[in-house]
C-alpha cells in the first residue's frame, strides 16, 4: 500500500494519472479535479463519522471515494442520456429520478434521508476556475432567429458555415481584352522566366556600366548543336501531335533502334528495325521474300569460318 492514491486516481481519468504522482500540479484543469475529489473525500469522511466510525484507513476512504464518484458520474451520464433521448439538452429533475430508479435506488427514501438530524454540513468546495474552454471562432454576425422559429431552438451557426459566397466574377468575353490578357500574361511569364534563368545562371551584358540592365543568358555551345536547332521543341511537338500522331509513334520506334547491340544475332543490325517482323531471318541466308529489298536492310553476313584458327 505504498501509494494507494496513485492506484485510485489511475482509473479516474487520463489527466488524473499525471496529477496523482506529481507534487506540483500546474494545470488548472487538474487543480479543478483535485479540488472536487477532496470534497468527495470530505463527504465520505463525514458520512463515515455519521455512521459511527472514529477513524478509517486512508485506503478505505479512497476506495469509498472512488465508488461514490463512480456512482455520481454514472447518475450524471445516464441522466444526460435520458434528457437527450427526449430531445433536450439540459437534464431535468425527472431525468435524474428515472436514472436513480433505473439504478435500483429507492427514490422515496431520499427526502427522509435528506431531512435526517445528524446531518453534517459540508462547506462548498473552494471555488476554482473551471477550465476555460476555448471559444469557437465566431466569424461574422450570427443570424437571429426569424419569428417563426422558437427561440429555444439553438442559435444559427456561424454564417461562414452555411452562407454561399460567389468566388469568381463574371467571365470576360470581350475578345480584345482576352487577347490583351493572354499577351501580357505570356509576356510576364516569359520575362519572369528569363529573368530567373538569367539570375541563376551565367549572363552576358550589353552595357558595361550596369550589367544587370538587360541580362542575357550566356551563350553556351553544345556538342551537337544541330539537334536543338532542327528538332521541333516540345511545345511545337505537342501541336504536331494533335495534327498527326502517327508520325510520333514512328519516331519513338526508331529512336530505340540504334541502341541495339550488335554482338549477337538478334540485334544483328539496327537496319532490321525497319523490316516487318517476319523479315528478320538468321543472318546466314538473306531473305529474298521481304517486302522491301534494299541492301541496307539485309542482315550482315557472318565471316566465313577459317579452319586455321
Amino acid at each position, binding site marked *: 500500500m505504498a501509494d494507494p492514491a496513485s492506484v485510485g486516481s489511475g482509473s479516474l481519468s487520463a489527466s488524473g494519472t499525471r496529477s496523482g504522482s506529481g507534487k506540483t500540479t500546474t494545470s488548472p484543469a487538474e487543480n479543478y479535479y483535485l479540488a472536487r475529489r477532496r470534497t468527495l473525500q470530505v463527504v465520505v469522511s463525514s458520512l463515515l463519522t455519521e455512521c459511527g466510525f472514529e477513524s478509517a484507513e486512508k485506503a478505505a476512504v479512497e476506495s469509498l471515494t472512488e465508488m461514490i464518484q463512480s456512482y455520481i458520474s454514472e447518475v450524471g451520464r445516464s441522466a444526460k442520456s435520458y434528457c437527450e433521448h427526449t430531445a433536450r439538452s439540459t437534464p431535468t429533475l425527472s431525468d435524474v429520478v428515472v436514472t436513480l430508479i433505473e439504478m435500483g435506488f429507492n427514490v422515496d427514501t431520499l427526502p427522509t434521508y435528506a431531512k435526517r438530524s445528524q446531518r453534517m454540513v459540508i462547506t462548498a468546495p473552494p471555488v476554482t476556475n473551471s477550465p476555460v474552454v476555448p471559444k469557437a471562432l465566431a466569424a461574422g454576425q450570427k443570424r437571429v432567429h426569424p419569428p417563426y422559429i422558437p427561440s429555444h431552438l439553438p442559435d444559427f451557426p456561424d454564417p461562414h458555415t452555411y452562407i454561399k459566397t460567389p468566388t469568381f466574377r463574371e467571365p470576360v468575353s470581350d*475578345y*480584345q481584352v482576352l*487577347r*490583351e490578357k*493572354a*499577351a*501580357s500574361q505570356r*509576356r510576364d511569364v*516569359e*520575362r519572369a522566366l*528569363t529573368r530567373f*534563368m*538569367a539570375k541563376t545562371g551565367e549572363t552576358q551584358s*550589353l*552595357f*558595361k*556600366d*550596369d550589367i544587370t*540592365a*538587360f541580362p*542575357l*543568358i*550566356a*551563350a553556351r*555551345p*553544345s*556538342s551537337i*548543336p*544541330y539537334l*536543338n*536547332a*532542327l*528538332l*521541333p*521543341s516540345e*511545345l*511545337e511537338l505537342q*501541336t504536331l501531335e494533335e*495534327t498527326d500522331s502517327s508520325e*510520333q509513334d*514512328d*519516331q519513338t520506334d*526508331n*529512336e530505340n533502334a*540504334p541502341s541495339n547491340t*550488335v*554482338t549477337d544475332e538478334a540485334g544483328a*543490325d*539496327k537496319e532490321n528495325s*525497319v523490316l516487318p517482323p517476319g523479315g528478320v531471318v538468321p543472318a546466314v541466308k538473306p531473305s529474298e521474300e521481304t517486302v*522491301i529489298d*534494299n541492301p*541496307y*536492310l*539485309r542482315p*550482315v*553476313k*557472318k*565471316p566465313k569460318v*577459317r579452319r586455321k584458327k
Partner: protein
Amino acid sequence: MNRKKDKGFESPRPYKLTHQVVCINNINFQRKSVIGYVELTIFPTVVNLNRIKLSSKQCRIYRVRVNDLEAPFIYNDPTLEVCHHESKQRNLNYFSSAYTAAVGAVDPDAGNGELCIKVPSELWKQGDEMKVLKVYIEFSLDQPKGGLHFVVPDIEGNMAERGAHVFSFGYQNSTRFWFPCVDSYSELCTWKLEFTVDASMVAVSCGDLVETVYTHDMRKKTFHYVLPIPTAAPNISLAVGPFEILVDPYMHEVTHFCLPQLLPLLKHTMSYLHEIFEFYEEILTCRYPYSCFKTVFVDEAYVQVSSYASMSIFSTNLLHSAMIIDQTPVTRRCLAQALSQQFFGCFISRMSWSDEWVLKGISGYIYGLYLKKTFGVNEYRHWIKEELDKIVEYELKTGGVLLHPAFCGGKEKDNPTPHLHFSIKHPHTLSWEYYKMFQCKAHLVMRLIENRISMEFMLQVFNKLLSLASTASSQKYQSHMWSQMLLSTSGFLKSISNVSGKDIGPLIKQWVDQSGVVKFFGSFAFNRKRNVLELEIRQDYTSSGTQKYVGPIKVTVQELDGSFNHTLQIEENSLKHDIPCHSKSRRNKKKKIPLMNGEEVDMDLSAMDADSPLLWIRIDPDMSILRKVEFEQADFMWQYQLRYERDVVAQEEAISALEKFPTPASRLALTDILEQEQCFYKVRMQACFCLAKIANSMMSTWTGPPAMKSLFTRMFCCKSCPNIVKTNNFINFQSYFLQKTMPVAMALLRDMQNLCPKEVLNFILDLIKYNDNRKNKFSDNYYRAELIDALTNSLTPAINISNEVRTVDNLNSDVRLILEEITRFLNMEKLLPSYRNTITVSCLRAIRMLQKNGHIPSDPSLFKSYAQYGHFVDVRVAALEAVVDYTRVDRSSEELQWLLDMVQNDPSHYVRHKILSMLGKNPPFTKASESSLCNEALVDQLWKLMNSGTSHDWRLRCDAVNFYYTLFGLTRPSCLPLPELGLVLNLKEKKAVLNPTIKPEAGGIGGVGALDLCANGGIHTPISGFPSSLEEEHLPMEPPPNGVAPAPHGLKRKAETPLGSPPEPVQFTAQEEEDIDMDTVHDSQAFIYHHLNMLERPSTPGKEPPLVEQTLLSMPATPLPAFIKEPSASKHGEHHHRHHHHDHKKKKKKHKHKHKHKHKHESKDKDKDKDRERERDRDRDAHAFTSSPASGRSLRSPSLSD
C-alpha cells in the same frame, strides 16, 4: 581550241585506267585517321611506260607495288607552298601566276600528278606486250585537313552514341585528298570499294552495296560496294556514321541516311523526292542511270549539296519538319539540284575543265525546268530574272565571266581574263564567287540555246547524250566507248546541230567564247504625225564586263488596241528604230484593252498622254539576251505596266522603275498591287519595299496613316479590334509571306526628323506582343525573326552629344522598348530554341545594329561568344558577320587577328570559308584606303595563309587570295617597304637570255644547266627530268647568286640580305617558259622550301622531320613514315635551322661532287644505311619500307650522313 578536236577524247596520260579498288580497313574516329590501300588497273598505251603519275595529296604513302614488285616513287606537291618561303615579294600578280603554275604542274587533266611512280625496270623491259599493270598503293591519312571531314562531338559515350561521322568533301576534283587516284573527271573506270567500319556504323558510298560482312571478332563490319558504271575518281565519295536508315517508301532502291534522332525530319523531307525523280526521268525520257541512289545528311557539310555517282551528300540543316514553311522550297530545290547533277556531272562527266560549262549548264537548265513545273511559271521567270540580274551585276563589277576559255597553247600572256586577279585556267584557282556566277551564266546560256532551238530539241539532245552514255557504260572496257560518257563543248554543239539542224554558232560565240554582258539604254518618242514610235536603243560596250551585241531583239509595245511584238535588228550603227503603231489615240474610250495573254481589261486611261496610244514598252521581254536594260518611259507607263502587264518580270521592272517617281499615282498603283490576291507574292513583297521608299520621298505630302498600315490592318488584324493582329494561321502561304514582309518594309519609313514614326514602331511592338501561334499548324519562327528584323530596320542613329559613354540611363525610351524585346527573345530562345535558331540570328543582327547606331556600347565580346564552335552554324555566321563589321567600323586589329585565327583553326570548313568571304565583302580596309591595320605583319600573315596555310582546301585558298586582293590589290601592298627595284627589272631581261639555255637541259642532266644558270643570274632553277630530279634540290645551294660569293646558301637566306630575294625571278621564269617541264621545276622548289614550313604539312601536324632532312633540304613533300616517326621537338625548328647551316657548309662539297657523278642511287653511302637502321629500330613497322627499294629511292637524298 578544244572544239577543233572532234575525234573524241585524247587522254593526256600514257596509260588508261580501267578499274580501281579502294579499300579502307580502318577508320579511327578518336585519332581521326584512316588506313587503306588502293589498287589501280591500268593499260599502258605507250610501249615503254616507265613512270606513272597519280594524284595524291596529304596521304602518307607506305609502299607502292606494281604487279607485286616494289616500285620507287616520288611524292611532291608544289601547291603545298606556292611561293617559296624566303620570298620577300608580296604582290598578287606574282602569287597568282605561281599558283596557277603549281596547280598546273600537278593537274591530272594534263596528265600530271603529285605522285610519280617509277615502273620497275623488270616490267617495262617486257613492255612490248602492253601488259596490264596493277598499281598497289598502301596509304594512310592522319587528321586530314581536307578531303575527309571528321565530326566528333565531344560528349560521353562511344562514337556511335556521340553521333560521330566522317564524310568526303571537296571543291571540284578533290578526291586525291583522301586516296591516291587519277583525280580527273575525264579518266573513267569501274570501282570496287570496301570500307571496314565499326559495327554500329554504316558506310555509304558510290555504287551498289553487294554485301556487308562482319569481321572475325564481330566488332566491325565491311561494306562491299561495286560500281560497274565507269566513273571518274572525283565522283567517288564516302560517308560513315551511325546513320539512321530510311528506305524511300516510293522507290525501294533509294535509301536515305541521317544522323541519329533526326529520322522523323528525314521522313518528312524525303517524302517528296520521288516526284523529282519522276520529273527528270520523264523529261529526259531516260531512266536514272544508276541502279540505286543514296542521300546522306551530314553535319558541318562543306556545301549544302554535293553530288557523287549514285549518291549525294547534303547538309543536315536542310532537314525540316512539316511545320516549317520557309525551308521547304529551299530544301526541295537542293534535292532537285542534286538529282539533276546525277545525270549531268556524275553520270556524264566533262572532258576538260573548259567543258565544265556544258555540264553545269545542262544540270542547271533541267533544274530550271523542274522549278517551272513545281513552283510555277511565275516563280521560274522570277528566278531567271534574279539570276540574270546577278550575273549582270557581277560581270559589270568584275569584268566578265568566260564560260569556255580557249587556252591556245596555254601561254600565260594570252590570259583571256586579264581583269581578274586569278587564273581561270584551272578550277582550283577560281574564286568561289566567280565559280558560282559561272554556273549561273552556264544555265542562262542553256536557256538561250533553248530559246533558239526550242525545248523539244533541247530535250532530244539531252536524251541522245544520255543514251549514248548509257550504251557506253554497259560496255566492258573499250577505251573508245567509254569516252562517250565524257561531254565536251564540241560534242554538245555537234549534237545540237545534228538534232535541230540549226546553227547556233553565233550564239555560242557571243555568250560562251566571249565574256561580258550587254548593256542597253532605251528611250523613245512618239511621232504623232506618222503614228510611229521612234525607239532609240544605245549600247555601252566600252566599260568593263560589257560586250557589243548585234542581232535581233524583241520589243513588245502595249497599245490601246492590243499588245504587239516587234523584232528589231540591232546593227553596228543604227540606233533608231521606227515602229509603226496600230492604234490611233483615244478613239473609243469604252472599249476594253486586249493584253498580251488575250485577256481584255478595263483600264482607267485618264492618266495617259492623250496624244499617244502607247501604254507601255518592253525591250527584250523574254530575257533572250544576257543584258541589262535601262529604259526610259513616263511614270504613268510604268504604272500601267505594273497594274496590267501579267508577266512578273515586267511587274518587277516596273516596281524598281517606280522608285524614281514618288507620286500619289505610283503610291496607288503599288497599293493596288499589294492588295491584289492574284498577283505573284514575290512581286507584292517587292512592292512593299518600293512603297516604303516612295513614302519616304513623299514625306512632306504624305497623307493618311503610314504606308501599308491600314492595308496590313485590313488583311491581318481582327475586325473588332484593329490594333490586334489575328492569331496566326499560315495556311495560305502567299499571305504568310506578305504578312512577314510588310512590317519589315514599314519599319523603313521615316518621318521629318528621319526617325521611324512612333506609330509604326508601336505597331510593330504590338505585333510582337499580340503574336499568338497556339492555333497554328506551322511554326512562326521565321515570322518572329522578321519582326525582329523590322525592329532592326526601325533603328536610326542615336543623337549623341560628343563621344559620351553609352549607358543604360541615357537610353532612348523607344530603344529601351526594342532592347527589352530583343533581350526577351534572345533569352527565350535558350529555353525554347526555334528552328535553325532564326530568332537568335535576327537578335544578333539587331544588337549589332544597336551598337552601330550608337545606342549601346560597341562591343564584340557577345558576338565572339556566339561565334564559338558548338553553336548552330547560322548563329555562328551571323555572329561572325557582326564581328567582321565591328572589325571594319572600329578598326580593331585584335578582332581581325581573332578572325584570322579562326580561319586557320576552326573545325568547320564552311565557317572558315564564310569568314574570309565576309571579310572580302566587308573588308576592314581596302587597297584604296589608308588604315592603321594595314601593316607588314598582316601582309605576311595573309601571304602565309594563302601561300601555304590553306593548301588543303582549294576554296579557302581562293578565298584568301580574294581577301588579299581586296586589301592590297594586285601589286605590292603599300605598307611594305620599297622593294629593291633593280632586281625586279632584271627579271625580264634574264628570262629572255636564259630560256634558250634551259630548254635543252630540261630533259635529263639538269645539273649542269642549272649550275650555269645560277652562275649566270642568281637563278637556281632546278630543272630536271624524272630520275635526276632526285638530286636537283641541292643545286640552288651551290652558287651564291648575288655575289656574296662563297657564303653558303643556307646562311644567306637566314641573313635576309637587303638585296631582297634573288631566287624569285626563277619562279617567274619557270612559269612563263612553257617548255620547261613545269612539274619538275616545282617539285624541286617545293622540296627545297617546304621544310621550313613544317607546320603546314598536312599529314604530320606537329611533327618535325628529323634534323638530317633539314640539313639536306631534301625532304619529300609527303613524308615517308620512317622519317616522320623520328622524334624531334617541333618547337626547336628555328634553332635547328641555325644550327645546321654549318653542316651545309661541310656537305656542300660533297653534293657538288655527286652531281658530277651522274647521280647514282646505288652509291648510297654507308652512313645513310646506318641512319636508316636506326630508324628501323625506332619504328616497328619500318622494315617493310626500309628494306624495299621504294624507300631507298624515294628518300631522294643521296646522303643522309650527319
